[in-house]
């Protein structure tokens, strides 16, 4: 792919953009240029600031500092509508459209052609919709409701909508994540068409093959900072990976003695019809096993199957000595497996119940006799585990909903530890919490492993994965792409395995 000669002036230029949220600096002095008729790939790890910049571009977030220029003139996007009127439109991973409306209505919602009476001119709207769909080579009936369409067709509708408002900048946020090979190919053709029409395209993707296939230029972000930009023709995969993962500051992780004991959990040939295939691994006492992969690689799905929430179609697992078939969550807990889910707000604490009742919820069989609860036992269990986690609360009778986020999380962890598990699965244990709490969670994980628990940590953060794990399994598209130990555990190898890039020659 040869890069087109650089037009003199970008259609859209962001410079010096910074954006902070309480406790997090999401973007720090970043820049981004988009040129007419060119595809710019935005590359970065999870948490690099890609979604934040998209939200700044589409008027959802206001930057704390920095300039946005359209055709060299400074502009502001105080609302999503202002961004749309300036010609910036985004096509999201999960397209934001209305399932119950027709294709034509979705394309023209908010700017439908009107009759003289001010009513919607259906004839004109359908004709114009058909013309737009033809322009992008989409063979869709504008009268179909969106619910009847597949995800790829929905993307086409979103793109037609972008054209209908005469967008000049089209942002595609991982558009191929949910598409089949054929659909991806059609999307590439469409991107070429949009380029030919002179649109400036921002293309966000984790897949290096497609970046090299369709992008003209690249911009790399890391940890909310601008790392570099240039023409795709001047860069290699290796250089991009290096830019993505190179670390300026190393976080401090707890020092751990690597005391790996006997196998606790052996998973053999776990498969699911749609989510994952042929998962094999062995977990040992005192081990922290990291699971790395891109979002949607199937890591959480495997964990949910291990925990009995979904059922694998094939495969078995061995816990301790016996072969176990885990058919329900209750069985998993009885076998000593617990899962601390990613969304602790939604899946963790039961607000409305007091602290002690939250802690004992999965352990009720131990704190009751013949179905009747023994309050003294409950309080004792709750006291033991919340004290260990240094929970700050007025009393154990207090409603969990009244605690701060960090303390709620302690209640959730206490709840799981109180079941005396052999295997604890932590899904993104430090996502969305501040640096101080992260360190506390890391120390705590090290402590658990030192006590002989087997820990599985699912994480998308490379420093955390490398800093905490004894061993890392990398998943890609529902399969195990690599298992890395010792000196093989490098950022480059993780990213290569997760993105499906062959090892550097």
């Amino acid at each position: 792919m040869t890069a087109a000669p650089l037009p003199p002036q970008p259609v859209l230029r962001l410079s010096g953009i910074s954006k902070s949220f309480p406790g997090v600096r999401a973007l720090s002095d970043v820049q981004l240029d988009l040129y007419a008729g060119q595809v710019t790939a935005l590359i970065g790890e999870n948490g690099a600031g890609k979604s934040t910049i998209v939200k700044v571009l589409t008027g959802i977030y206001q930057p704390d500092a920095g300039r946005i220029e359209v055709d060299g003139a400074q502009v502001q996007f105080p609302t999503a509508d202002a961004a749309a009127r300036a010609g910036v439109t985004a096509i999201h991973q999960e397209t934001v459209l209305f399932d119950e409306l027709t294709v034509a209505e979705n394309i023209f919602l908010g700017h439908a052609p009107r009759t003289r009476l001010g009513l919607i001119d259906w004839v004109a709207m359908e004709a114009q919709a058909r013309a737009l769909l033809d322009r992008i080579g989409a063979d869709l009936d504008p009268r179909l409701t969106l619910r009847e369409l597949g995800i790829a067709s929905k993307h086409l509708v979103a793109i037609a909508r972008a054209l209908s408002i005469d967008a000049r900048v089209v942002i595609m946020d991982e558009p191929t994540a949910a598409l089949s090979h054929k659909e991806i190919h059609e999307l590439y053709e469409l991107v070429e068409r949009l380029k030919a029409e002179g649109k400036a395209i921002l293309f966000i993707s984790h897949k290096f093959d497609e970046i090299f296939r369709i992008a003209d230029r690249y911009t790399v972000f890391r940890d909310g900072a601008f790392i570099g930009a240039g023409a795709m023709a001047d860069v290699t995969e290796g250089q991009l990976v290096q830019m993505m993962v190179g670390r300026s500051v190393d976080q401090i992780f707890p020092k751990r003695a690597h005391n790996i004991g006997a196998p606790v959990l052996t998973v053999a040939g776990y498969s699911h019809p749609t989510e994952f295939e042929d998962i094999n691994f062995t977990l040992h006492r005192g081990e922290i096993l990291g699971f790395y992969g891109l979002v949607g690689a199937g890591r959480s799905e495997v964990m949910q199957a291990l925990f009995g929430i979904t059922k694998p179609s094939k495969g078995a697992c061995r816990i301790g000595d016996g072969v176990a078939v885990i058919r329900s969550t209750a069985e998993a807990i009885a076998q000593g497996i617990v899962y601390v889910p990613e969304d602790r707000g939604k899946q963790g604490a039961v607000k409305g119940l007091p602290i002690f009742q939250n802690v004992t919820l999965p352990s009720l069989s131990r704190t009751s006799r013949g179905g009747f609860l023994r309050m003294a036992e409950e309080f004792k269990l709750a006291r033991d585990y919340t004290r260990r986690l240094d929970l700050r609360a007025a009393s154990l009778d207090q409603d969990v909903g009244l605690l701060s986020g960090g303390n709620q999380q302690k209640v959730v962890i206490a709840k799981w530890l109180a079941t005396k598990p052999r295997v604890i699965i932590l899904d993104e244990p430090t996502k969305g919490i501040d640096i101080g709490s992260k360190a506390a969670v890391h120390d705590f994980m090290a402590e658990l492993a030192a006590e002989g628990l087997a820990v599985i940590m699912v994480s998308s953060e490379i420093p955390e994965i490398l800093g905490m794990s004894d061993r890392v399994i990398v998943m890609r598209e529902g399969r195990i792409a690599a298992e890395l130990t010792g000196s093989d555990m490098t950022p480059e190898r993780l990213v290569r395995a997760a993105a499906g890039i062959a090892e550097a020659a």
Partner: protein
Amino acid sequence: MNRLLKSREVLLALAILALLAVIATRFPAFIAPGNLTNVFNDTAPLIILALGQMIVILTKCIDLSVAATLALCGMVAAMLDGAGVPLALILPAALVLGAALGAVNGLLVWKVDIPPIVVTLGTMTIYRGIIFLISDGRWINAHQMTAGFKDLPRTEVLGLHVMSWIALAVIGGAYVLLNRTALGRSFFAVGGNPHAAVYTGIDVGRMQAVAFVLSGALAGLTGYLWVARYAVAYVDVAGGFELDVVAACVIGGVAIAGGAGSVAGAVLGALFLGVIKNALPVVGISPFWQLAISGSAIIIAVAFNARQGRARGRIILKSAEHRA
């Protein structure tokens, strides 16, 4: 003291006492012990049904078929009595039939995944239809019932009717179930956070089905009591009563979104409605006002609950966390 005043149950109890005081200023006879006993006797069915309904609502469901279940079980009980079946068998039969009808609701919600309001709206009509089919639309009147069948609910034991003693037993049972058993705890967990409940090994659908079975069984029991007490069984027995039952729960502070409520609240909610229903004729107010008054009570109770929920807000300050 402050905390006590904030409790919904205490406020509701005070409201009932205030209501009684106002009535007493004009009709002192209303608060005579004998009359209050009558009010309680009269409210007993509502209390029993409200406790069953509360368990269902705790799990984020609603049972609109309670009154129809009651009527069907009552009709079957009356027909069994007519066929010469002894009372000792009729009572368990009504209970089991009610539980089975509840199980139909529960299974449709659990296994077929139909929203509870739709399921019970459907079964409500179906159960009434079944009464028509088995009775040919005919009434079973007092003279067709045996004396033993009719007398049991009204038999006085230590100054209270047997029906009231049964209501007291159900109150006690519900209290133990909800506060002292693993099953009861699970109901709260399912309604409070279904996602979290799944992750703690609780089967949400199964708990909801169990709640429907309990509600159905209590409705079945009440079916016998109702038909025997009023000595008549027909298709429209307790027509529309399901709304009173839900109203008692709502007034008693049972959160319609599930996960919150107390036995005391549901009982007081039922008593509140019972006092209004019994007092209005005495005071000489048209029964139509009764509907308006209980309707207003529902709205006030819900507004009050919403206000309490809102006032809580987020606690960000560390100092506030300890105060809470």
